[in-house]
């Protein structure tokens, strides 16, 4: 069951990447393209990071504590980021909609900072890392259910490719 969940998430993230790459495609095409990309992701590419490493960790309600699962993902991120030092990183902190706006800015920042500090503790140079909070302003899942809120309470490691 757990592994099924992970695969399902992988598919979802692949879809996110694909939608960023293929702006004109319709939703179902994006998902399919994403799956193809998942198997074809070039090692060291942002797609490789998202699909094969996992670009995000999740939090419980009103918490910025890193779960053991989150630490596992951040461990894999730090290994990958050390192998590909050309990227600088922005960690985005997000909250679900079940909080007030201003508090959620602060909470999102706290989550981003928790992920950032963990990556630093695993050997990533602090100069490579920035944080930004989006509070509850940028949900990825929109419904009134816990299943959506779970996906929105997240810290996402975004690779900056300008250099």
């Amino acid at each position, binding site marked *: 069951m757990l592994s099924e969940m992970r695969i399902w998430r992988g598919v979802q993230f692949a879809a996110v990447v694909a939608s960023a790459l293929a702006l004109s495609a319709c939703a179902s095409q994006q998902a399919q393209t994403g799956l193809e990309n998942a198997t074809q992701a070039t090692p060291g590419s942002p797609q490789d990071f998202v699909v094969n490493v996992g670009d995000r960790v999740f939090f419980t309600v*009103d918490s*910025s504590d890193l779960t053991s699962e989150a630490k596992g993902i951040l461990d894999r991120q730090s290994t990958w980021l050390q192998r590909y030092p050309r990227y600088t990183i922005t960690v985005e902190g997000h909250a679900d*909609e*079940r*909080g*007030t*706006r*201003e*508090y959620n*800015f*602060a*909470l999102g*920042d*706290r989550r981003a*900072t*928790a992920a950032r*500090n963990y990556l630093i503790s695993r050997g990533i140079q602090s100069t490579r890392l920035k944080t*930004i*909070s989006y509070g509850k*302003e*940028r*949900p*990825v899942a*929109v*419904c*009134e259910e816990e299943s959506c809120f779970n996906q929105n309470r997240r810290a996402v490691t975004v690779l900056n490719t300008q250099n």
Partner: protein
Amino acid sequence: MTAEIQRRYAAYVASRYRRARRIAGIAALGESLIRLALATIAVWLGLMSSPALALTFSIQPGQPFTPMPIAVPGFAGDPALAAQISQIVANDLKLSGYINPLDPASYLDKVVAAEASPNFNNWTTIGAQALVAGTVQNQGGQITAAVRLWDVSTGQQMFGQQFATTPDNVRRLGHIIADAVYSKLTGFKGFFDTRVVFVSESGPKTQRIKKLALMDWDGANLRFLTQGQDLVLTPRFSPSTQQVAYMAYAQQGNPKVFILNTANGSRQLVGEYSGMTFSPRFSPDGSKLVFSVEHEGNSNIYVMDLATRQAQQLTNDASINTSPCFSPDGSQIAFESDRGGAQQIYLMNSDGSNQHRVTFGNGRYATPVFSPDPENAYIAFTKQDSTGFKIGVMKSDGSQERIIADGYHNEGPSWAPNGRYVMYFTDGGGATGGASVWFADVTGTVNVQVKTPGFASDPSWSPLLR
């Protein structure tokens, strides 16, 4: 009235007219001066208010309440202007929830001039307790409106007043007349001559486009202050209503607090901090801005003197401290903090001393906002508990808590300048849902949706424009 009094009164009116015209002439040069031209120019002396009024108004929490039925027939004079102004007056009074302008179809007299002697039987018959009569005239670019408010049951005049302005301020003239009527009928100060700045929302929920928007409180004169390139949030009026403090995501880096000049569109960054700055609010005199600064996962409250740009840190705590708001006299600041484990409301002196918790109820308490009415010392807040997000009011010591708007998600209170109403936004949630703006009165009896174009959130209610 003796001939002598009539003569003196005529001279008085003439002198006030001359002054108003002079001001109006100057005011055309600049927006800030236009409001002066709206000053009342003559008290109607024909019939002084009777000290013994039959009409009384009462509204209490949890008590049955019926809005006061009144009549606002068409005003006499210039037909188009008279219709426009009497409709603004009726609409404002109806939106207040306290007064019920009866259906004009039921009126036996369709138009009542200010100078007329009303046939009160025609108004008692339809159940009106008060009657608003008016005459509007356009004399060479000067709009004058004479208004009388009658107590229908006694036939006494409650007030008579004459107003003057320029044609571009006709809507404000309507709001000012409505404020005068509302104030006389309820005993509360008016609040219709106000604006609202808010966040106008469009696009899918995962990629909402947000723009700052400014409008009259009734939805008229909508104007966008930003065009949607940057994500913008939490606008708050300065007391002068010419400036708005808000948070914006610039193209790069952390979101920051800016101050926008609504008259010329210029904006300035507030402070130089490496971290995010957010949750701005002006002091009651407009000289200071209080806001939160994030650093290493903690958020603390700072206050900046806007003249000197010197900032002072007021909280220094390894927790979230945000949503600061000055008390009306500027001596205290309410804020929220999770230093005790979860969001609660705290108070401190405006220099940061004596920080202490004031909410101890079940649930989380957030976004404290002091009432502008110093006599009542209310704080409005957002309360989150197992059944939803509510808007409530309480005394500033945390006592006498009362929920005035319940639901799935209500957030972000902002007071009307008379301290009787709280505007907020409500969001039904879900994939296609969005926010809308409402206001509730402090008793929780009245709850009214505010007219906005599409989804809207983060309303900030201006002070009276005068």
